[in-house]
């Protein structure tokens, strides 16, 4: 009998993804383990693997389709010579014969509670601002795919009430985005400012190329807009001397044992020290290793350090878990692996989700200093500038030292100024005296 190929869930929270492309054509013979198609989520590209053999009888959802809901029938595999007229209907409960190469498929039973949780937080607008709306308004908005954060309330104290949602759904000034004909989407527009058409009018037609956003771009836009709008940021900068660290790094790297391929088994970068130092600093100032939630502060027991990795078309932040427990060489090698797979968009969701803080390093581009946007659920992010030789004054005399400027961006709801300063001081002490992070 034919088997349905369903859109796999690459993570428990995944509701939809893009079917990037099919690697098999209709009529192609398929062996167990063959890669059928590539699925793209906001952060990663995954391969859909066949777990049975047969012929790819029909492609239901063509390659390049965006926002395909999890468990949608995307294709059908039939036994060789089998009549494909006997296709199962999309609603058939036939088990998926696919699995993803990167992550186990999540059964629909596991997906359901997650989606209901999401519906529960629906009234929280995509921008994360608290939306005051009547229960009926919330439900009507949810059913109509309307983002309440885009609706102006006319009820008491600006509360959004039924008439506001009805007006918005009926095509008021802040109506829901027009659903695309191929894949209805309920995602709200990502900009709250000018309408697309208004923006485009500012430029000569034909003077620009229009590149539709991919999932990653949309995710970056949504999350950072939310972060910058809802997190009260403040910033703490300091110059950190690197000379002792550079000496230590040189000594450690030169004494690295050689592996089977004749290459050193590790080569530490300054960034590896930064990761480690930040992890140890958080252990020394545990009050800063926290996450804000509306009801409680989450005080983390480990330092999970996200590291921003620039990849074509965006960035991704893989996480070094329990970095305080790992050696510099472990961190270094893990980082290399994560960065390589991030660039290939092969990270699993659990490799880039969560974390308790993050590091963003633009030093390699010669940036002297900058301020990053806190990436929730983190309470802090450390922006690292270039290490360079600078004149410094020591004991009244001018000297030359290797210095880099680092800036903590901090969620003031979770970490106050003095606490942030304490964390920065602990970090600075560790970088300037790197032996401290080895014990």
């Amino acid at each position, binding site marked *: 009998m034919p088997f349905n190929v369903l859109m796999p869930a690459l993570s428990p929270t995944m509701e939809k993804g893009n079917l990037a492309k099919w690697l098999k054509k209709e009529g192609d013979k398929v062996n167990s383990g063959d890669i059928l198609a590539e699925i793209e989520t906001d952060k990663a590209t995954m391969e859909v693997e066949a777990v049975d053999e047969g012929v790819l009888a029909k492609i239901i959802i063509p390659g390049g389709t965006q926002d395909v809901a999890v468990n949608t029938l995307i294709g059908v595999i039939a036994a060789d010579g089998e009549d494909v007229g006997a296709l199962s209907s999309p609603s058939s409960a036939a088990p998926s014969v696919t699995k993803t190469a990167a992550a186990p498929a999540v059964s629909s039973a596991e997906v359901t509670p997650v989606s209901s949780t999401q519906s529960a937080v629906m009234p929280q607008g995509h921008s994360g601002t608290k939306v005051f709306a*009547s*229960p*009926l*308004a919330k*439900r*009507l908005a949810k*059913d109509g795919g309307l983002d309440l954060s885009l609706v102006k309330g*006319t009820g008491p104290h600006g509360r959004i009430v*039924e*008439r506001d949602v009805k007006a918005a759904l009926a095509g008021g000034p802040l109506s829901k985005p027009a659903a695309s004909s191929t894949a209805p989407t309920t995602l709200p527009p990502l900009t709250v400012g000018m309408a697309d058409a208004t923006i485009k009018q500012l430029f000569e037609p034909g003077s620009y190329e229009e590149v539709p956003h991919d999932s990653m771009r949309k995710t970056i836009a949504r999350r950072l807009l939310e972060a910058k709008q809802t997190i009260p940021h403040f910033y703490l900068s300091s110059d950190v001397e690197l000379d002792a660290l550079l000496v230590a790094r040189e000594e450690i790297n030169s004494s690295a044992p050689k592996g089977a391929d004749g290459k050193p088994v590790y080569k530490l970068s300054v960034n590896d020290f930064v990761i480690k130092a930040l992890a140890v600093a958080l252990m020394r100032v545990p009050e800063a290793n926290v996450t804000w939630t509306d009801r409680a502060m989450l005080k983390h027991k480990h330092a999970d350090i996200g590291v921003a990795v620039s990849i074509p078309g965006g960035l991704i932040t893989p996480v070094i878990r329990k970095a305080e427990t790992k050696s510099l060489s472990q961190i270094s090698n893990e980082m290399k692996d994560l960065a390589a797979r991030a660039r290939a968009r092969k990270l699993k969701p659990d490799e880039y989700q969560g974390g308790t803080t993050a590091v963003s390093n633009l030093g390699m581009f010669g940036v002297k200093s900058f301020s990053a946007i806190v990436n929730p659920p983190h309470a802090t992010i450390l922006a690292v500038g270039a290490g360079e030789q600078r004149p410094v004054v020591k004991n009244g005399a001018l000297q030359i030292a290797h210095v880099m400027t680092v800036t903590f961006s901090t969620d003031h709801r979770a970490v106050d100024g003095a606490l942030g300063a304490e964390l920065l001081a602990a970090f600075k002490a560790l970088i300037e005296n790197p032996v401290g992070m080895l014990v």
Partner: protein
Amino acid sequence: MADAYDIMVIGGGPGGYVTAIRAAQLGFKTALVEREHLGGICLNWGCIPTKALLRSAEIFHYATHAADYGLKLDGAMSFNIGDIVKRSRGVSGQLNGGVGFLLKKNKVDVIWGEAKITKPGEIVVGKSAKPAVEPQHPVPKGVLGEGNYKAKHIIIATGARPRALPGIEPDKKLIWTYFEAMVPDTMPKSLIVMGSGAIGIEFASFYRTLGADVTVVEVMPQILPVEDAEIAAIARKRFEKQGIKIITGAKVTGVTKTASSITATIQDEKGSSQAITADRLISAVGVIGNIENLGLESLGIKTERGCIVTDGLGKTNVSGIYAIGDVAGPPMLAHKAEHEGVLCVEAIKGLPVHAMDKLKIPGCTYCHPQIASVGLTEAKAKEAGYTIKVGRFPFMGNGKAIALGEPDGLVKTIFDAKSGKLLGAHMIGAEVTELIQGYVVAMGLETTEEELMHTVFPHPTLSEMMHESVLDAYGRAIHV
């Protein structure tokens, strides 16, 4: 001529005096013109004195059913109708005085007389052409007199009066309106009630409880025509069990009078007619707006079916002239008038207000059993195109109702199946007029079934039925 007022309200009924007080609260220099009685019909000849009468009837009912509660009254329970009326007038008088006090406290000038708007911004107050209804409460002290007055904004709140059918005009003797029915000098042995709206049904209930032979004639196929059909059917059954004769789908085509009795010819839809003779006939066929002698015609103010046309916030088609309450159209209820008046002056003040949603105005009828409702009836909800979920919970399933000895009644809720919006709630049974407000608040806050289900209702109360009815709409009732 006195200094110009910011706001002048014509009519001191529940709509008018509340409007005036709210206007004063908002800092407007306010005056109110009244020709007859502060508190209007509601307080003097309607809502309040009838509740006093019905309370007497209710206590009489319980006293005559004392044995049901394990009590024994030695001797016969009896009453003197004059004393019942006296108590009712006393209640009215007390509240009438209260309105005067409230206006004074809020520094609202009261002008005694009949107002005529000569042009926008100008009112002439003269002697009332209308003979006052007796007995009359005294004219309050400190009122201003007749003369010319000026106001930036004029709010008409002149209310309504009983509608008369041709050939069956009230004569104050044999054919009563609510005015006479409220102050009978003798207890009629038999009574025909023409019209089965709230007013007709309340008088039918009052007089029947005190022992009169009562026949209700209704032109529509159901009594209480604005209520949900299921609730009205239950009410009819209960009334008939109490001995009230009910004739629906029929109208009184004519009357003949003797010195002390009246015979009504009643014709049903099929054309067959019958004659019923009674001591009195109460005409309760609705009310019409008091739009006369105000100068509306010369001002060109638009009226429709005897009421002034407004924009929902009281604005008429003529700038500076507003209308609220009964005179501005149905539903003709005191609480609608009050709220409309408040919205009107708040809009004048520039506060962000929205016109009232008339589907969220509750209605109460204080017969026995009581009836209360808000929102759409089941039939109206279907008519409006909703797919509905209907919940029902009978009084028989409620502990408090059983303990009260009131096991008859129903709480019915109607939800939009799609959105969970509470479209309507309809109740019949003991104390439901005090319960309905729970649903009104729920509708006002736009709750869905979910919030109602998650609301904790105190036990043991009749209100638990409101919870159960919601649960029942979703197949989750516990006690049925």
